[in-house]
């Protein structure tokens, strides 16, 4: 594995661990952005400039849409119950397994680093998908899961073609656009929270009053 691909893989994992671990939704989106922006580079050979630009633009748009809804959120959301060291350990273990299992019995066309990162992202996505009760965390989990799918795909069948890169970027935009719409709708729904705030975390934040412990992030 080339050092560059290894470094890129680590960057993808670092972004994903940040996305699932931090309670601040803005930092979480930043982590997701890093992960989505770097993952198209985990391919051998590197994607052509135009398809790569499509993926990067798609990634930016994909994180920008939930950002529009989230940017004024002042409170923490329910992050992973395990904490970032545990998540990092889970990701590292999955990456090692993925590296060893590269190809799954067939001769792969892509780099082992993509399999390692893909499996690690899939593991990191499990907690928000299974235990995440709020829309935002579910969206983070979904984005990581689909990113894992694209990484595994690149590892198994090589660098995607230009049209596939374009469609993949549109898939991310559709998913995260759906998430943003869902979060926006959830804010307007009675007894629903867009970003379910855990009471103890909300109370930790300065300036919050008793009303802030209610499920709604914004009135």
């Amino acid at each position, binding site marked *: 594995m080339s050092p560059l691909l290894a470094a890129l893989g680590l960057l993808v994992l670092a972004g994903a661990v940040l996305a699932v671990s931090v309670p601040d939704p803005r930092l979480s989106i930043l982590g997701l952005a890093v992960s989505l922006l770097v993952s198209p580079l985990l391919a051998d050979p590197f994607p052509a400039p*135009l*398809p790569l630009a499509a993926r990067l633009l798609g990634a930016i748009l994909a994180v920008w849409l939930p950002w529009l809804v989230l940017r004024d959120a002042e409170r923490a959301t329910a992050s992973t119950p395990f904490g970032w060291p545990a998540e990092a350990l889970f990701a590292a273990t999955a990456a090692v397994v993925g590296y060893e299992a590269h190809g*799954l*019995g*067939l*001769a*792969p*066309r892509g780099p082992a680093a993509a399999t390692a990162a*893909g499996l690690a992202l*899939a593991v990191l*996505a499990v907690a928000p*998908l299974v235990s995440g009760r709020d*829309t935002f965390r*579910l*969206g983070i*989990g*979904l984005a990581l*899961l*689909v990113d*894992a*799918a*694209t990484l*595994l*795909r*690149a*590892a*198994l*069948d*090589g660098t*995607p*073609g*230009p*049209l*596939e890169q*374009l*469609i*993949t970027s*549109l*898939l991310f935009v*559709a*998913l995260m*656009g*759906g*998430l943003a*719409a*869902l979060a*926006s*709708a*959830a804010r*307007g*729904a*009675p*007894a*629903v929270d867009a970003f379910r705030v855990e009471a103890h975390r909300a109370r930790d934040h300065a300036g919050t009053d008793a009303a802030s412990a209610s499920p709604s992030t914004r009135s």
Partner: protein
Amino acid sequence: MTPLPLIAVPLALAAFGLLVGTRRRLATAIGIVGLMVTVALGIAAAPGSSFEVGGSVLALTPFGRLFLVLGAASGLGLSLIGLAVGGEDDPGAMRPGSLPVVTLVAVGGLAVALTAQDPLVAFPAALGAGAGGLLASFRATPSAAGVEAARRELRVAGVAAILVLPAVAWLAGPSTPGVAPSAGLGLAYLAVATGLALRSGVFPFHAWAARLAAAAPRLALPLLLAWLPVGLLLVGLDWERGSVASLWASFEAERQLAIAVGATSLMLGALGTWLQDDLEQIVAYSVVQDAGFGLLALAAFDLSGWEPARTWLLVFVVVKSAFAGWSVALRHAFGTGRVADLRGWLRASPLLGVALVAIALATVGWPGLPVFEARWALVRLALDDPFRSIVFLGGLASLAYYGRLVAIGLARPEPETGRGAPWQLRLPALRPSSAEETRVAVGAGPGRFVPAGARRLAAATTEAWRLNRAPAAAALVLALALTGLAVAAGGFDVGPAAGELPIPSSSPAAASAGPQPSSPTASPGGPAVGPSFVPLPLPTP
């Protein structure tokens, strides 16, 4: 004409419609015009035409064209039904996207999926269309149940992606020919089948469909439960025929599991539908039941099952659109969706009664009708006796709940039930409207002079629409139901279009699969039509 306009126009108009989403009427108008244009483009598009993007070919097959045209037309019909009934079912009342606009998103996405020759392009496109369809799952007034249903929809899309994409990539073609372990082949097949089952909402994944039916806009149900999952299923069938169909003997256990899921859905779906007392739940469970045939199609590794599978899936989506439209029109006419409160509905609205009979006939058919033969072929290819007969009879059990609805419709109505006679056309009184009313009706600016004749016409048109909304909705439902019946009877050249093969006849997989009912067609001067998936260089068992 290449398929490019059929992809680009719906997507561009959908983007425009989403951007003006806060202006509900404008967004709805853009969506409806966009669907009309899409239908026209689909009819004008030449099957066999293709174009290339970065080395990937997008080719329009006759079946793909028919599916997209019928999809846009059904979306248009449902949107017009929504306009006719108004209220919560007004297509513009959905948030954040109106039904016609989201239907355009779905048609554009599925156009990419059904024209792409590479499954690694087709699957993400179909999944993306499904994620875009999420925008149709919000009612105008957000509710906790609605948000929860949309969360589930998102979750299903993500899980389907992680199951399907790596499995397809794994079998897409190793760089050095090797022998795939049969367990791995079975695992890949199982992953794809599970992803498709999740999206289709078959048993045991039906809870998602039921909750969605309770929370999503009623007119969006065909899009969410039928058109988008079936688009993914069609891509899955294409992939299966090109990749693993000839090797099914090496993963017979996985195949049997898919058959078990499909058969269980067929058997229990009818029972579940029978137990429901709400029109939308009846529609949802009927989808769950009939989606079982889709799983059977996925497990019928025989080339003779290709045409029945695609015929059935086309009938399925059109008929479920008509059924959902019927439930909305009936709810509007009688002010309730509880079956128990709908006694005598058929006496009050025979047009909807005819539509329901057409829906039932198109769903089940009779011996000799293409839809009946398609259902029988799918069961026959997947199962042996005695299970074959039992499951086929389970499929026919849908007649029971259609019969129940008809029986309730023929019963003596409660005195307070019904609003009148929705099928009767009422003529408006020809009175001149006020200047303000006319200006609004004809779209003229303030202070603009409008001739008296135009004022009368505008007033009469507005009044006629107001008085005849219910018959208009019933007529649209009938049109959808008759379209479904026409497709079920083999109209629109469904048979030849559905029988078109995805695998070139020279490929090992096709050669090993036996005689072929038809061969890929070629347009004059154009490339061969039909996906040219490269089969695995694996030994045939």
